[in-house]
């Protein structure tokens, strides 16, 4: 029995990281209906910047955190400036914007490869690498960091969306961009902010996950797929959906690798994603905000 719980808990830790990534995808999607294919690379960037600031330059953890999220936000805004802004000004189709984000994801990946090298890097865990044993279940310190960070992030997101004027503007723009413009909301600048926030959140996910394993420049695509799967399971655009979707994905993956087959685990993940898309594309939770498809 402890075996089973151990398997499930290992899936939970990963699942929460996927959940944060899914949340970052939903932040952008729920407001503007744009699927940002570069979110996976932004998560990778968070891990790599974390290696630079925390493991190499040895900045204190809070400072490194700010640097990582700030750096990723900057890249997110750059992406907006290079892809979304010019294309929406030219009234390009949504699909064109999606393809452009794909192009930008390639740019991020190669830029990191060129500046930080192609080798995997050790990401120092802030609370050390010690293991804690509770009733036969073994946990690492980073597991607790991830849980804490997720809770804080969810609280922050809830507060921003429901209690702040930014959140009000985001919800307004999601429902009706034209009307929002009429009441004086600068939708263009709002898009920029949203891309920055989404990128920062994805970077946070990478920064939290990398101490469990390592920071590597080549896992961006894998992250993107996992993030989209989690978001779809929970419901594109829904924030509780992101969390549930991430947890479901993490746990199911762990169970599949342990009990079904170590070889076909990946295949099953994609089959799962397709099944959800066929049966209930809106996912487990109805999406809040922007209209579908």
């Amino acid at each position, binding site marked *: 029995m402890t075996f089973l719980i151990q398997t499930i808990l290992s899936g939970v830790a990963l699942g929460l990281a996927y959940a944060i990534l899914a949340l970052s995808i939903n932040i952008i999607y729920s407001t503007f209906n744009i699927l940002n294919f570069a979110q996976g690379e932004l998560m990778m960037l968070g891990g790599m910047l974390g290696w630079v600031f925390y493991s190499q330059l040895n900045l204190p953890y809070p400072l490194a955190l700010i640097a990582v999220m700030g750096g990723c936000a900057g890249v997110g805004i750059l992406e907006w400036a290079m892809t979304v802004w010019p294309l929406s000004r030219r009234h390009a189709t949504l699909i064109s914007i999606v393809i452009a984000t794909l192009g930008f994801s390639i740019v991020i990946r190669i830029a990191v490869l060129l500046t930080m090298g192609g080798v995997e890097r*050790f990401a120092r865990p802030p609370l050390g690498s010690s293991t804690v*044993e509770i009733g036969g279940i073994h946990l*690492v310190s980073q597991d607790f960091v991830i849980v804490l960070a997720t809770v804080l992030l969810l609280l922050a997101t809830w507060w921003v969306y429901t209690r702040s004027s930014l959140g009000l503007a985001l919800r307004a723009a999601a429902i009706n961009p034209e009307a929002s413009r009429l009441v004086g909301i600068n939708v263009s600048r709002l898009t920029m902010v949203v891309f920055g926030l989404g990128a920062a959140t994805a970077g946070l996910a990478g920064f939290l996950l990398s101490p469990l394993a390592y920071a590597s420049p080549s896992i961006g695509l894998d992250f993107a797929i996992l993030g989209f799967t989690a978001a779809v399971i929970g419901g594109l655009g829904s924030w509780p959906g992101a969390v549930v979707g991430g947890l479901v994905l993490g746990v199911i993956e762990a169970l599949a690798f*342990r009990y079904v087959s170590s070889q076909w*685990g990946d295949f099953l993940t994609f089959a799962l994603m397709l099944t959800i898309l066929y049966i209930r594309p809106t996912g487990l939770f109805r999406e809040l905000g922007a209209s579908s498809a």
Partner: protein
Amino acid sequence: MRMLSRFFGLISCLLLVGACNSSPGSSGSGASTSGDVIRIGLSGALTGGDAILGQTQREGVQLAVDEINAAGGIQGHQIDLITEDEANDPSRMAQIAQKFINVDHVDAILGGTNDGTAVVLAQTAESANVPLVVPFANGNQITAGRKWAFQVDVASSSFVQGIVTYDAKAYKKICITYDNNGFGQEDRDLAVSDLKALNVTPAAVVELPNEGQDYTPQLQQLQSAGCEVTISPDSGTNVAQLRKNMVQLGYEPVITGPNSLAFQSMIDVGQNFVEHKVFFMDLIDASKPAVIDFQSKFTARFGSPATSGFELLGYDAMKVLAAALEKGWPDKTKVRDALEGLQNFALVSGGTDSTLSYSATVHNRPTPSDLVWRWVDKGAFANAPIPFPTQ
């Protein structure tokens, strides 16, 4: 409309012109007369998942080229090394191979960092009658039945044999973990059949997904099978991650594997988790005088010593090719004959007294005794004590 048609006509001319003039900015591949320099094409994966292979290969080859050029070159001519990135893509490899042969007009080719691309390279070299020396791709299909391709690495079957021989003697419950790539799957199959020949069935055979973040589920499979040792044709970073999860779970079987584990990233990522716990067979014997000498030259050139046998294999491959070029250049057939006539050529890679001999029927290196057990000691790779210390 008219402009459109003309534009398309231009494209086909562009194809011809562009292809003829295509000589990308790698080290000096000019279309000069072939009397001046000896042109050697070097291909390796410099981007993508196997980028470390291309990089280590290039360093080893470059060291040899520098040495040879400083000593006067081959038959008095300097070597011009033309490097390309095959990026693990067989189709791209075919294009690069053709470019080497028909655009750069190379005298010989080195490279092919994985089995798939090495086979494509060997096919092309064979039909163009150009000598090819492959430093480390060690699959059987690369040189089998071919006249122009030669391998320098010990066959992977020898690596697996060496590992299985030791593990079967020292342990009862043996498991296999492997990487989801061609090399991992091939070694897995070799290990299973080698164990079978000894009447041993692996207690578990588990795939480690590439660049996974957490191997607890896979490790639990090993745990419930009661494994004492794993045979792990995996990447160093995957094994480092496996070690972390092992310590976390409090279940620590011994890890043994081939030289896919022999990369600095395993130590960087694994930190003290891999100290004294991971054993692998490699072609670098730190106690050998030729290796000590090599390391000081390598450090002087690149700033830090070579970490694994790969750099040594690159060096050896270039030296072997140079010896043949010295005898046969500029006649490619004579170079090939010289390669086949190689006898007892002293190598840096491998154990003491390891030499290489080719013949008309043997174009590779079937000598498992060349392999050396290594481990991580004080944060660096070193020769491992045999038998492994039990802890």
